[in-house]
């Protein structure tokens, strides 16, 4: 009976617009209104029937629960209050799509941008090319797999017409006691910014420290185990292992894993308006024949390959103050410290030294203030430090490098789903005393399912 009614309503809805005379707008509108009314009435009927059914079921369940206190029956599935979804497509995953792009202007040639004192960390860093640039279009699918797992795929379609798997992982949903296991490809959970997707960044690009030390973001191809402590204070511990496919690690020619990461985060509230989170992380990675060397003062690499250990630790902190739904202040900062040791070789693989050592570090501090419902302004300071590498026969004129950068940002958010941003950088990454002035205009739009953002 219920089905018949909704089918009738559907037919009515489908045929109504066809019957309305197209010439007369008012008549068409009236017909549409009538169709809506009909649809609404039949829907109300259907819902009423369902509510009755539910109420009876609920009452029965309650009686049963009270009668035999031991094992109550499972609760009746809540009736969806929206339109009934049909057939196989009812199980379609949530789909969301992010569109992004920018316009870039630089005072120096972006083609020869490199960070002084740091080996090249992949091709996803730097200010990018001049003029209009299509950013990554991020396509995300997510759904529960079954009562035990959920799955997420985020694919990035680049402006260069390539498809990259940004993240593709399963996650457990049926474990107790604060345990969650994630597997596949995912942004590693260390620090604060590493897990944040590009469309949720507060600036156009990542801080220099992330660019120089992880090529932007470190993706783990492996497994993550997280445990949340049963305390009112937020306290989590995580451990990851992967295949090492991503700067500063490489894949290894042996069985086993590479890129072990340990992290912990602690967080809570101060009063009603302020929340905070701090963390500490440690990554131990290994590289075998990693290409690219630290540039000397003239920009030529001192070596071509590195084989050895790379250990990094990170401390991170974020504080948010939201005194009203229309104002928010967010302050965040991270410090990354890395030590690398091993052997270096030339492009033919001839070992140049087996006692190579280098220490580098980087930090940033940024603040974003939402001063009106739709407007945010932000400032960021970035700094890097690389000691001169030490090894036998190292050139004597090597100097410490200390690139830095200042960025200012203003963005306008007409809704939760759109953002237009302007950013200006004074970039001293090249460390030759000359500042690159970079300005960028960026758009970020989200369509499809309403995503939920992490803290």
């Amino acid at each position, binding site marked *: 009976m219920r089905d018949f009614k909704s089918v009738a309503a559907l037919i009515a809805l489908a045929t109504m617009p066809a019957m309305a005379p197209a010439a007369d707008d008012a008549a068409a509108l009236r017909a549409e209104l009538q169709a*809506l009314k009909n*649809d*609404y009435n039949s829907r109300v009927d259907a*819902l009423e029937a369902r*509510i009755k059914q*539910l109420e009876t079921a*609920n009452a029965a*369940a*309650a009686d049963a*629960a*009270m009668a035999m*206190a*031991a094992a*109550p029956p*499972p*609760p009746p599935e*809540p*009736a*969806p*209050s*929206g339109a009934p979804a049909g057939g196989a497509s009812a199980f379609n995953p949530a789909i969301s799509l992010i569109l992004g792009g920018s316009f870039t202007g630089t005072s120096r040639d972006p083609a020869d941008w490199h960070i002084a004192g740091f080996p090249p960390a992949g091709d996803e860093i730097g200010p990018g090319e001049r003029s209009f640039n299509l950013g990554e279009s991020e396509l995300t699918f997510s759904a529960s797999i079954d*009562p035990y797992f*959920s799955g997420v795929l985020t694919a990035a379609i680049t402006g260069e017409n390539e498809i990259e798997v940004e993240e593709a992982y399963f996650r457990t*949903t*049926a474990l*107790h006691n*604060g345990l*969650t296991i994630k597997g596949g490809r995912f942004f590693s959970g260390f620090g604060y910014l590493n897990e944040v997707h590009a469309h949720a960044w507060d600036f156009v690009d990542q801080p220099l420290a992330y660019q120089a030390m992880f090529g932007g973001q470190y993706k783990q191809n492996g497994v993550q185990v*997280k*445990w*949340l*402590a*049963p*305390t*009112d*204070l*937020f306290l989590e511990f995580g451990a990851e292992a992967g295949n090492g496919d991503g700067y500063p690690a490489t894949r290894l020619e042996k069985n086993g894993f590479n890129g072990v990461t340990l992290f912990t*985060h602690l*967080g*809570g*509230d101060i009063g*009603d308006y302020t*929340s*905070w989170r701090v963390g500490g992380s440690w990554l131990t990675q290994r590289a075998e024949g990693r290409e690219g060397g630290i540039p000397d003062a003239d920009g030529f690499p001192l070596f071509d390959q590195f084989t050895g250990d790379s250990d990094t630790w990170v401390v991170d902190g974020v504080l*948010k103050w*939201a005194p*009203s*739904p*229309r104002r928010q202040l967010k302050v965040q900062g991270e410090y990354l410290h890395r030590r690398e040791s091993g052997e270096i070789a030339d492009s033919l693989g001839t070992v140049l030294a087996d006692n190579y050592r280098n220490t580098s570090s980087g930090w940033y501090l940024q603040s974003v203030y939402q001063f009106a*419902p*739709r407007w945010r302004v932000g400032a960021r300071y970035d700094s890097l430090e690389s000691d001169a590498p030490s090894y036998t026969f190292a050139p004597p004129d090597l100097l410490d490098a200390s690139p830095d950068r200042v960025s200012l940002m203003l963005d306008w958010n007409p*809704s*939760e*789903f759109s953002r237009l941003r302007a950013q200006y950088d004074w970039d001293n990454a090249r460390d030759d005393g000359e500042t690159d002035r970079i300005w960028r205009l960026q758009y970020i739009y989200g369509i499809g399912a*309403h*995503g*939920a*953002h*992490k*803290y």
Partner: protein
Amino acid sequence: MKFIRLTALLLVGAASLPANAALKVLATTPDWGALTQELGGDKVNVYVATTALQDVHRVEAKPSLVARARSADLVVATGAELEVGWLPVLIQESGNANIQKGARGYFEAASALRLLEVPSQVDRAMGDIHPDGNPHVQLDPHNILAVAHALTTRLAQLDPGQAAYYAARAKDFDTRWDAATKTWEAKAAPLRGAQVVIMHRDQVYLCHWLGLVEVASIEPKPGVPPTAAYLGTLVGKLTTTPPKLILLNAYNDPKAASWLSERIHTPAVTLPFSVGGSPEAKDLFGLFDDTINKLLAAFK
């Protein structure tokens, strides 16, 4: 010692709930928190995720909330996508199988209600609309009662040992609520048919209950702040036939409403909207008492 206790907790597992422990409830809004407290008494330990001065659409998945979700036996949410921007993250990050969607420890108030304004088509060009219907359900006492019944059932299922206790409290609440509802309806009778301007679509249930007639909304579309031009047209439209009241909520920015109020000589009344939204709205009874009192005071 602490470490041993933690380890022991880990081993014992949350599945075997100690017989006399209070149910840990994470309520998304102060209203569901207050209702759970009414029904659960001292057998529940309620933590409320938001305050009446927050916009529940836009809440952060704060670490403190993830920590509460981790140990919750029951999540009481509104549903209908009201908490879509943050609750899924809490549930995901919680590592707590008991509160996953579809589990017994996950309760949605909307599942017990007939929602108003279920759109026949949805498009984001229409603003912040909710495909399942308007989720701001708490300002109709009949909705509160329907949710109370469903929630009592759920509490009894989660904590069968106390089923009789919950049933008794529910019965008591039922009687008091019924009487209070009759009083509110009698008091508010003069308001029936009064024309009002609302802020967002979140006073729709209140209007529906009291028979208030919405003639305009300060937000041109849900979630879209008014422009000067739009407010100008509102003034033009409302000057000739001024409405009786302009309604806004404790968490709203009062600027646009007071601007309009001056132009069209109509009082703007700030309603608590949620438990805690005004000093008088200490619990659900206070919320409705204060809402009706404020409406009547401004109406005169």
